[in-house]
C-alpha cells in the first residue's frame, strides 16, 4: 500500500499521537469531544496552519523560512491601513496577497540566483516585514470593514480556507511535476540539477508559495482579531517549523508530507486547548509540552532512520 510506505510512517505516528491526545482529553473533559471544539481548533489555528503549509514546502525543498511570523504582523497592519484610507476590503486582501507573494518571490530569487543561505535571506525578510509594519503603524489598528467583520464572525471561513489550501498544496506537492521537483531539490540538489529539473525556478516558486500562504495566514489572522498589530505573529515562525517537524518533515529536506504538518498544527492547538480547559495550568506549560513533544518526535524519526540504514 502506497499510503503505508516507510517514508509516511512518521505521519502515521503523528496521527496516532493526535488521536491519543484527543481521546485522553475527551475522557478527562466532558465537552471536549464535540464538533464545535474541533471546528474551533481549526479556526483558532488556521493562520498558523496556513503559514505552516508554506513553510513545509520551503523545508521540503531543503530551505527554511523565518519570515512567516513577521508576514502575519505586516499583512494585518497593511490591510488595516489600506481600509482606513478607504480601500475596499476585497482590494486590500488582494493587494496584501500580492505583496506577500512578491516578497516571497524576491527572497527566493536571492536564494536561487546568488546562492545566499536561506536562513539569512529570510531573516532579512523577517526584519524587513516586521520593520515595515512598525513604520506603517506602531499602534494596533482597528478594522471596521464590513467584509472583514462578516468573514471574521463566520466560523466556517477560516477552517474552510485552511482545508482548501491544504488540499491544493497536497495536489501541488504530490500530483504535479512542481511537487516532484520540490522533493528532488530537497533530497539532493546536485542530482536534481543533473536530471535537468528546473532547480532555480523551483526554489524561487517555493518561497513565493510560502509568501502567499503566510500572507493568506495574515489575512485570516486579521479576520480573526479584526485588528492589525505590527507585533502579532511574534515567534510564529518557530511554531510553524515545530509543526512541520512534529508532522514528520525532515529539516534536511526531501522528506515529509503536508498532512503531517496539519496534524502537527492540530496537536499544538490541542495542547493549548487542553491547558485552557484545565484552568489551573499556566500558559508556559504549553511551551514546555511542545518542546518535549518535539524531542519525542525527533527520537522517533531517529529510530526510523536507524532502521532504514540497517536495511539499505
Amino acid at each position: 500500500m502506497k499510503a503505508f510506505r516507510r517514508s509516511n510512517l512518521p505521519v502515521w505516528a503523528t496521527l496516532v499521537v493526535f488521536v491519543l491526545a484527543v481521546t485522553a482529553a475527551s475522557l478527562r473533559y466532558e465537552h471536549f469531544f464535540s464538533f464545535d471544539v474541533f471546528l474551533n481548533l481549526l479556526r483558532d489555528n488556521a493562520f498558523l496552519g496556513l503559514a505552516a503549509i508554506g513553510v513545509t514546502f520551503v523545508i521540503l525543498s531543503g530551505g527554511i523560512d523565518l519570515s512567516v511570523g513577521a508576514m502575519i504582523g505586516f499583512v494585518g497592519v497593511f490591510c488595516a491601513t489600506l481600509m482606513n484610507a478607504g480601500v475596499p476590503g476585497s482590494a486590500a486582501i488582494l493587494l496584501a496577497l500580492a505583496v506577500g507573494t512578491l516578497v516571497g518571490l524576491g527572497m527566493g530569487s536571492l536564494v536561487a540566483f546568488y546562492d545566499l543561505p536561506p536562513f539569512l535571506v529570510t531573516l532579512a525578510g523577517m526584519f524587513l516585514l516586521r520593520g515595515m509594519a512598525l513604520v506603517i503603524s506602531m499602534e494596533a489598528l482597528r478594522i471596521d470593514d464590513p467584509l472583514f467583520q462578516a468573514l471574521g464572525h463566520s466560523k466556517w471561513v477560516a477552517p474552510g480556507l485552511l482545508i482548501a489550501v491544504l488540499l491544493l498544496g497536497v495536489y501541488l506537492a504530490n500530483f504535479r511535476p512542481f511537487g516532484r521537483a520540490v522533493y528532488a531539490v530537497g533530497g539532493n540538489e546536485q542530482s536534481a540539477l543533473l536530471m535537468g529539473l528546473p532547480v532555480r525556478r523551483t526554489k524561487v516558486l517555493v518561497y513565493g508559495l510560502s509568501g502567499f500562504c503566510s500572507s493568506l495566514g495574515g489575512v485570516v489572522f486579521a479576520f480573526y482579531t479584526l485588528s492589525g498589530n505590527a507585533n502579532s505573529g511574534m515567534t510564529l515562525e518557530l511554531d510553524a517549523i515545530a509543526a512541520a517537524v512534529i508532522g514528520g518533515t525532515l529539516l534536511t529536506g526531501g522528506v515529509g508530507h503536508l498532512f503531517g504538518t496539519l496534524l502537527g498544527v492540530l496537536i499544538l492547538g490541542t495542547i493549548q486547548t487542553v491547558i485552557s480547559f484545565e484552568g489551573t495550568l499556566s500558559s508556559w506549560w504549553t511551551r514546555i509540552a511542545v518542546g518535549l513533544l518535539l524531542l519525542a518526535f525527533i527520537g522517533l524519526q531517529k529510530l526510523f532512520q536507524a532502521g532504514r540504514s540497517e536495511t539499505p
Partner: protein
Amino acid sequence: MRRALHPTVWAFLAWLLLLGVNLAFTPGFFSIEVRDGRFYGSLIDVLNHSSPVLLAALGMTLVIATKGVDLSVGSVVAISGAVAALMVTKGQAPLPTILAVSVGVGLALGLWNGLLVSVFGIQPMVATLVLMVSGRGIAQLLTDGQIITFQDPGLASVAGGSLLGLPNPVVVAACGLGVVAALARWTAFGTMVESVGDNERAAHLAGVPTRWVKLGAYAVCGVGSAIAGLIVCSYTKAADANNAGLYLELDAILAVVAGGTAMTGGRFTLVGTVVGALILQTLTTTILTKGVPVQWTLVVKAVAVLVVCLLQSDPFRRTVLSRRSAA
C-alpha cells in the same frame, strides 16, 4: 584572475564606512570624556551594548564552524537571568555563587544541546529548536510568569559597574574573547573544530574526536549565552522570561556570518565575529543618535543583512565584477 578578498575584510570596510558616515554627519560621535574615572561617549556605548551579542556570538562562531547552529541562545539568556534574579531575591547566597550557578546552568544547557547533536546525531537546527521552544517556558516556570525585579547592588554592578574606566560588560566580553581565542588558537581545539566543519568523516578517520569537539563547541556557546544573560538581566535589574534575549540568537548568528564565517562550516574567524557584532551595534547606535525614528531600525538592519550577504556571495560579485570589466 583577481584574488577574492577575505569576507572579514569586507566586513571591516563596511564598519569603517559606518564610522566614516558618523565622523562626517554625527558631531561628537568620536568624543570620549572621562567622568568619575569612567569613559563616556558613543563609542563606549557601542562597545558596551554590543557585549551580550558578542559573548553569545563567540560560542556561536565555534558552533557554526562545526557546521551547526544554536537557536537556543535567547532561551539560555532568559533562563540564566531568571536563575540569577531568583537567587538574589529569594536567598542569601553571595554574588560569586549566584554568578557561578547561572553560568553553570548555561554550561549544562549547552552540554544538553551538544549531547543531542553529537551523541544522538540530531540535526543542529532541530536539536537546539527543542530548547529554544521550551526554554522560555522553563524560565517562566522558574519566575512563575512574573517579571522579577531586584535592587541588589552586587548583581546590578555586573553591567553597571566599571573596571579601569571601561564598563564591566566590555571587560567581560574582552575576557571572553581572550579565553575563546586562546582555546581556539593556542590549543588544537580550533583546528579540530575547522576539520569537523569541513569534512566530519575525514576528521573522524584522521583521529579527531569529532563528538567531543562538537560537544565542546555547544558548551562554549551555552556558557557565553549564560554570561550574556547575566549582563542583560543586570542592565535592566529585572528578569523578564518572555522578552530577555528575544531573537538574540539571530543577532549572534548575524554577527558571525557578517564577520566572514560561512554557515557551511569550516574556517572561522573570531576577529570577524567581533567586527560583525560591532557593525550591528554601530548601526543601531547610529540610527538612535541620528534621530531616525526607532521603527526604521529593523528596516535598516534588513538592508544591512542583505548587503553583507550579497557582498560575500560569489555569484553576486562575479556578475558585478564582470559588468565592471565590460564597461
